Structure formats: C-alpha cells, structure tokens
C-alpha cells in the first residue's frame, strides 16, 4: 500500500516537473497530453491489452496451444448447447430492458407529485441496493418447491399461491423455457428501480409552463402522457433502455446463483465463465467473451450518440 502511494507520488512528481518546463500556447497541449499519459497507460495495460489478448486467444484450441481459426465461433453458432445459450441471451435482452423501463416509467408517472412519493420510490428502489447474488438467493426461495406428499408444507411463495388456488406445486426452476423467464423477472425486479429513478428525474425536469399550458388547453391524462411527457423524456428513455440492455447482456450472477446454468438457462456471460474455468476450454471461453463484447458495441454506440444528440438540442 505504502509502496503504491509512493509510486503514485513519484509519477505525479515527474509529470508535474516535466509539465512545468513547458509554457505558452503550444505548451498547454503538451501539458494536457502529459496529464493524459498515466490514464492512457493504465487503460492500455488493464483494458486494451487483455482485450486484444482475449481476441487472440479465441482463435486457439482449449489448451491455448494450437491455432484453429474461427472454429470456436463456429461451435458457438452450431453446437446445440451453445445455441440454447444464444437463444436465452436473446430472451434476456429483448424482454428485460423494455419491461423494466416500462414499469419504471409508469411507476414514475403514477407516483409523481403524490403524497407518498418518496416512500413509494424508496420501495421500488430498494432492490437496486441488493447485490445480484443476494437477489438470486431471495428469489430462489420465492420459487422453492416442496412436493405434494403427506403433510409437507410449501416454503416458496409462488408454489404456495399455486396450492392455495388449488393447483399442484411445480418445480419452477427446471421447466424450460419458463425458468429463463423466471430468472428474467429477478433482473426486472432489480432494474425497474433504476429506470424509475432516472425517468422520475427526467419527468421533474419538464418545464412547468409547458405542463400548465397543456392543462389550460384541457388535455386529458393520456394525451398529456403521449404528447408532453413521453417526447420530453424520450432521450432519457433511450439511455435507460440501452444501459439496462448492456447490463442484461452481462448477466451472470443471477443465473449462476439460481440454476448454475443448468436446465437450459445458461447465458453468454455464464457460459464463458463455465467454459474457461470449469471445462478448462480457454479458446471457447475467450470466443464467447469476444462475442459478448461485439454484441455490446452497437448498444454503446447508440447510447453515446443519443446522449450527444440530446445534449446538442
């Protein structure tokens, strides 16, 4: 720790010393680059190099010793298990962002300026503060199954409800593809709070005079939502959608804690960990990581663009 602090001080000292030697208009530019240098170096070591290394590794076999070209990518798009992984990832990415954002938006509008606003917001925001692993454990209990045998009692909420309604308990987490959607609910439960917080702030930022003017015109609630609220918060909605989308692509903890990827619930992030560390297949693991990276890029670009556009207007 001390060594790190000293190193930090020494590096800063050197940079400041060199920066001090430059002056004038052109000097500013040099100083700026000098200040950027440590961050760029760290990014290179901590992000760029591992990234390139992963891409390189994805063209090699399980042991990382012989070059096999695009075979790992071929496996991802042809192997039955891997196709299930891709299918599940599609489910996650299509369902989670839209449902979570929709819930967050509706909730934000409903509680806006109500008497219990802060309490109602805190309630839906709470899951945000729970780690994904803890959320997984909690929901595992919600889905827990006990057999319909003798006087065995249900301990899971969902199965208890089913029993009260006169049904038979179901082993929820092994029913494919229902189980994937049950896991998605956990993610929505966490992310709706995030969506609500950001969108609520955006709604509050709508200028009061616009709303008042609309009210004077006698606009009903639905038109207010369609014509005023939604267009005003639209850039924020896009940001929220894409941010949750990226988070969903990376989902790992929920799947790992609740099913371990068994019963056809694996997703890319979980599969690449499993291939790398359980199956010791470094090549396929790296290829899955690269695929994840490639899938995230367009969303990030879209996110950055829409942010810029909203800032420009």
């Amino acid at each position, binding site marked *: 720790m001390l060594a790190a602090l000293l190193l930090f001080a020494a590096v800063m000292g050197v940079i400041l010393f060199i920066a001090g030697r430059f002056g004038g208009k052109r000097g500013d530019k040099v100083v700026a680059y000098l200040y950027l240098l440590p961050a760029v170096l760290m990014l290179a070591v901590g992000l760029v190099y591992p990234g390139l290394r992963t891409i390189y590794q994805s063209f090699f076999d399980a042991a990382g010793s012989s070059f096999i070209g695009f075979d790992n990518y071929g496996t991802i798009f042809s192997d039955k298990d891997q196709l299930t992984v891709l299918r599940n990832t599609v489910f996650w990415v299509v369902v989670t962002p839209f449902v979570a954002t929709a819930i967050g938006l509706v909730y934000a509008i409903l509680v806006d300026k109500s008497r219990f606003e802060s309490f109602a917001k805190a309630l839906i925001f709470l899951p945000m503060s729970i780690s994904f*692993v803890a959320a997984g454990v909690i929901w595992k209990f919600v889905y827990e199954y006990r*057999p319909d045998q003798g006087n065995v009692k249900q301990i899971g909420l969902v199965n208890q409800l089913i029993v009260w309604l006169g049904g038979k308990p179901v082993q929820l987490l092994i029913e494919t593809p229902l189980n994937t959607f049950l896991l998605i609910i956990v993610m929505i439960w966490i992310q709706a709070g995030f969506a609500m917080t950001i969108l609520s702030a955006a709604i509050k930022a709508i200028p009061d005079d616009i709303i008042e003017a609309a009210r004077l015109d006698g606009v009903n609630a639905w038109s207010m939502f369609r014509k005023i609220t939604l267009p005003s918060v639209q850039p924020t909605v896009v940001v929220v959608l894409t941010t949750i989308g990226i988070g969903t692509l990376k989902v790992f903890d929920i799947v790992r804690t609740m099913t371990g990827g068994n019963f056809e619930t694996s997703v890319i992030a979980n599969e690449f960990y499993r291939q790398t560390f359980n199956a010791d297949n470094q090549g396929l693991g790296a290829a899955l990581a690269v695929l994840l990276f490639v899938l995230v890029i367009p969303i990030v670009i879209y996110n950055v663009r829409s942010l810029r556009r909203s800032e420009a207007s």
Partner: protein
Amino acid sequence: MFGQPTSPRFRAALAGTLSAGLVFGLAACGGGDSDSGSDTDASAAAIDCAPYTKFGDIKGKTVTIYTGIVTPEDTPHIESYKPFEQCTGATIKYEGDKSFETQVLVRARAGNPPDLAIVPQPGLVKQLVSTGKAVAAPQEVSDNVDKFWDKAWKGYTTIDGKFYGAPLGASVKSLVWYSPSEFKDKGYTVPTTLDELKALSDKIVADGGKPWCAGIASGDATGWPVTDWVEDMVLRTSSPETYDKWVSHEIPFNAPEISTAFDAVGGYLKNDAYVNGGLGDVKSIATTTFQDAGLKILEGQCSLHRQASFYAANFEKGTKVAEDGDVFAFYLPGKDANTKPVLGAGEFVVAFADRPEVKAFQTYLSSDVWANTKAKLSSGWVTANKGLDQANLTNPIDKLAGGILLDPNATFRFDGSDMMPAAVGSDAFWKQSTAWITGQDTKTTVDNIEKAWPK
C-alpha cells in the same frame, strides 16, 4: 453504469493476484484466532524432530499453504502443523479459500502460486503441472509415500514419470447412510450384496415407504453426486480394470459397460417407486442440495442415502452418528460378498517452491507422525496413510471409513470424475448427469459426454 456488478466472483478471477492478497490478509487474521484453540494437548505432544534437521536451519522461515479447506475444518489443520513449527522454528501461513479450485490455477498461471497447495483432484494436479510452475516432490516425500501408501496413490500424481504430490486426507464414498433404529424396529438387515440392496429397497416399498432420498444440487458443481453413483456402479457391474480403462479413456465414455452402470444407477434414482422420500418425484433430485437430501432419514421420510463419509458433518448437533445411534452408514455392497470395491477421494500436497523449509514441511505432511497428530485433533477426517493408528480415530464414522480404507481385501479406486480432464470431469459429466436425472435418456447422455472428451 451505476454499480452494475459484473459478478464479484468473475472479477476476483481476473484480478486473482489482488484478491488472493486480500484473502491472504484475512486468513492471517483467522489463523491468529485459532491460536487460542482449546485442543493443545495433541499438538503439544513432542515429536521426533530428527527428520527435519537435515534440511538445515529453517528457523524464522515461512511456508505458505493454500487450500479449499475453510472453517471449521481448518482449525485441526492449523493445529496439526504446530509440532512442526515447534521443532523447526518455521512458520506456516494457512490460507483457506472456498474458490480455491479456480483461483489456484489463476494464481499459478499468473506466476503468483503459494508454496504449497492442498489439491483435491488428480485432474487439477495435472493442470497445475502443465502450467510449468509445480515442483516435483523431494526424495524424502517420495520415500514416505512408498512406505505409507498403497502403490495406486502414488500413481495419481505421477505425471510424465515425475512424482508431484503426496496424498494427505482421504474419504470413502461407497457408503449408504441409514437409520440403525429404523432398521431395528422394522427388522431390516444391512445388505451384503447388490441383490440384497435391491431386495431391501423393494421391501421398504412394500412397507409403504420411499427407500431412497437423493439430491444433486451443489451450485455450479450440480450433478457431481450422480457421478459418484455411476463410478460406484462401474466398479460393481464391471470391474476395477474396466474402471481404470474408462477413466483413462482407453474405452470410450459411451461403451456398453458404462451405459450398463448408468442404467443400474437409474434403477435406483430414476425409479419413481424408490425416490425421493419427502422431496418429490425423480426430478426433485436435480433441485435438492446434496446436503439436504440425507436429512430426510432423521425425519423418517426415507431410509437410504448414498453419500461419502464426510456427510456425517451435515447432521445437526446432537444427532448420534454411530452403529447404535440415530444415523450411521454401511458399505455400499459389491456384486457379491467377496468383492469389495471402494470408491474414494483424497487430497494431495503440491509444491510450487523447492526451498528447504518447503521440503521439510512437505516431508512432515507425508509422515505417519502428521497423520496421527491430525487424527487425534479432528473428527470427520481419515487418511489412507498406513502409518495411521486406527485407535486415534475418535468417532464411529471415521473408524468405519478408516477400516474400509485400510482393509487389505478392499480394492480402492479414486473418484473417476476427479481424474478425467476438466472438460469431462467438472463439466460435461456433471451437466449431462443433471440432464439425465431430469429425463434425458442414457444413450444421449453418454454420447454427449463422450463428445466433450478433449481430442
């Protein structure tokens, strides 16, 4: 994005060095606590220091040992190192980590391995050796292993003619847990052949019960209890020789002998009449944790649960684990009363440094002195070290397991999935077995596992 966690475990895996350093700090603190442990009588016992003097003066030197053994089982380990520390003046730094099995590889590959690692699988030993960072065991350790262990054990960690790790502890997997009092009440007897086991199961069904309970859920290792079942059945329906060929892939995974073993297991686990006492239908095996499954014996919901000797620790405090107690185990019988195959597992000590103090400590761990010290200190622990005086084993289940391990008539075989390549042993075999329990047929299962075998 706002604190969007990429899994902490994943991050830890990538930043192996960093997290290992943190865990190290914690482990060091934990070690301090256990110093005040009450069991000082055994560790204070004087041992012969002569075997360690030839490594020179190692006073003040430190040896780090990294393992997956965490509280509470780590205490007897730390205690059992004391005689060595007193003899030599060296310090042993114990570091227990639940994610040892992935972290140790990350650390070895990153060039930051511990001095010694307690590795629970020969397959993992092989992977560690392939990183080029492992160091072959010194002559003294090799001599101890020749003296105290059955020859097969040395073979498990001999890679390309070089011997890497002495075995440490061992467990017996071929056990069936049952309730002695229930057996007495209902007039059941402990079976001595597979046919008798089947007959007993049928009898329990006829009495209106579900004989077996089973659970294979175990986080990301879900499925492993099935592999133990299958291994036990390969040993019983075929032969130990077939088993060896199967493990080393001289016969394919989808060979008829293996399918037969799977079907034999299916005769018990995929039989709705036999399972799953108090837990549900056959599919419930997939979602019941292996820790929970056997507890139904105490509740009277089922009568039999096949699980290793370490399962004793799962019964709550106050449960009498003994031949005349609430719960006990019997040896999973062979095909006939004469053959006695035993499936088991164990740990091996692998070194990543060859400093004198590391060698000296390795020598200590491979000795009969350590085995007996450890046996006196712990409960729920056995070893296949022939120098172990069985009188030092304190609880009944340890005595049972020790007796089976050191029985000269027993044919011991190491857990097969632990010896297969990771792609099979800790991936396809687990995953496909889980699918098999939830309905996949045997042929698809063995074919899929065979396909996963690295070429």
